[in-house]
């Protein structure tokens, strides 16, 4: 068994009529059971990478593997693949197809050909897991954006995928909705699902991710543990996304306090500072 769940080996992809390829020899490995973030500027190929990872776009060249099994584009293989890889789109309106919450969660399960009793049991369980029981019969157009986001994740998680891909999950959400989403993602990660999130929100990435992948112009330019990747990015003056605010505060203090470890949260930061003051 490989320690990596998803692998891209020298993958190229061009959209029809595009002047240059979107993915240009992408090599990428996604460790199992880690909370991984994929960062990069707009147009660097993050969403395209997601479409390929879910078998929705066929690479021009290269291999995509899940648990060392290469992706082939025949109907049966794609069905098996999509049972293991779930994709949550940036815009929940794009994702939701049924008239009500319960019906939408049932959609993927019905497509798997499960019996009505199995579908009913899984929908009920998913509604409970995502705290959506009260909204089960609500029409989707009556939900808030945060609720729609929750339903779109629930609909994918009902299939119990090994890998959950989320494209910009915090887009359009207010801080409360973002916090609630983080709690849900934490619970999903605890169940043993590997998470890969594409985002521009570096503050979110810095506090949430165990592993970070950085893409630029269709290629991977950095990967590794979060602190290691941001250390690497700091030495790249051309990196356009900037650095997380916590990292910037720490790096300014680190000149005067070289022993201060890089904090991953505000709480950690204040604890380190208080400890430092106590020691002095």
């Amino acid at each position, binding site marked *: 068994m490989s320690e990596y769940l998803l692998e891209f080996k020298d993958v190229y992809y061009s959209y029809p009529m595009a002047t240059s390829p979107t993915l240009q020899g992408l090599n990428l490995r996604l460790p199992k059971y880690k909370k991984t973030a994929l960062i990069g500027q707009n147009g660097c190929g993050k969403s395209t990478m997601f479409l390929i990872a879910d078998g929705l776009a066929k690479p021009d060249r290269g291999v995509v593997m899940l648990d060392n099994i290469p992706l082939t584009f025949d109907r049966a293989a794609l069905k098996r693949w999509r049972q293991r890889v779930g994709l949550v789109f940036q815009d929940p309106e794009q994702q939701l197809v049924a008239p009500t919450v*319960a019906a939408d969660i*049932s959609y993927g*399960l019905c497509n798997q050909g499960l019996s009505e009793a199995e579908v009913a049991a899984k929908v009920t369980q998913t509604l409970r897991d995502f705290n959506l029981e009260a909204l089960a019969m609500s029409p989707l157009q009556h939900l808030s954006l945060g609720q729609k986001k929750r339903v779109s994740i629930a609909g994918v998680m009902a299939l119990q995928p090994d890998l959950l891909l989320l494209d910009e999950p915090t887009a359009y959400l207010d801080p409360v909705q973002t916090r609630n989403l983080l709690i849900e993602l934490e619970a999903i990660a605890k169940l043993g699902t590997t998470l890969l999130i594409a985002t521009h929100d570096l503050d979110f990435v810095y506090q949430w991710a165990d592993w970070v992948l950085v893409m630029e112009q269709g290629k991977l330019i950095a990967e590794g543990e979060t602190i290691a990747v941001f250390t690497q990015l700091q030495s790249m003056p051309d990196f356009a996304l900037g650095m997380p605010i916590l990292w910037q505060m720490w790096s300014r203090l680190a000149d005067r306090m070289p022993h201060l470890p890089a904090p991953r949260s505000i709480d950690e930061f204040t604890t380190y500072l208080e400890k430092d003051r106590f020691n002095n």
Partner: protein
Amino acid sequence: MHIQIDTLAYSNRLRHLPPAQKLCFAIAMLLLALVTHYPIQLAMLVWMSVWIVFHAGIPCRIYAAMMLGVMTFLVTGMPALAIEYTSSSADIHADAWGQISVWGGQLYLSRQGTFQAISASMRSLASTSALFFIILTIPAIDLASLCQKIGCPPILIELSLLVYRFIFLLADTAQKITTAQISRGGYRTHRLRINSLNLLVRQLIQRTASRYQQSILSINARGFNGEFRFWQPVAYRYSWRYATESIFGCTILIIGEILYRSYV
């Protein structure tokens, strides 16, 4: 995007009654509206209004506005039935409420025509109230599952459910574009209104095409296999109280109709 009628269908006080019970009642009322005479139809109109406003809790203002729309339509059609013109004056006295001489003939308000207009209007209003009862108390998804149970072709149900889902997205997009246009001075003058409307339609077509592409990706990502299938939990409570009231009321209406026919 909220469409008020749809919101009411999901939030009314009869929401938890089985849709079959509500639909059977409404169909029975529609049939009665077809075969009864106008005093009974008037009673039906009042009774259906009681169901809609008091039992279902639909705000009177909304129901009145809906009925007013229908009434306006009916009133504009009434003169065609009630007013008649004849060139000879001999045979109109028995039938005319009143007349005026025009162009060498008589323009008169016909008794028979007036009764016909009242009868047609009452029939329309009674039927419409039964139809509004369906629209305002049975959500689209419940109607679709009922259609499924009675054996409607699946493709028809799938299409109507998809149209139902996307109609809100389209309405939402249209509303957002319109708001953006208004905020930038669109619709201020007649010419601007036409230009803005033209832009709106073009944008809607473009965005619909783009949303179609996105939807294809999305349904494929969720394992689409050529057929839209959903499952819904059923949480309806059959009500003996409402069943008794509806059967009792229908019986009274039928007896009323029999009595009306035997005396008139």
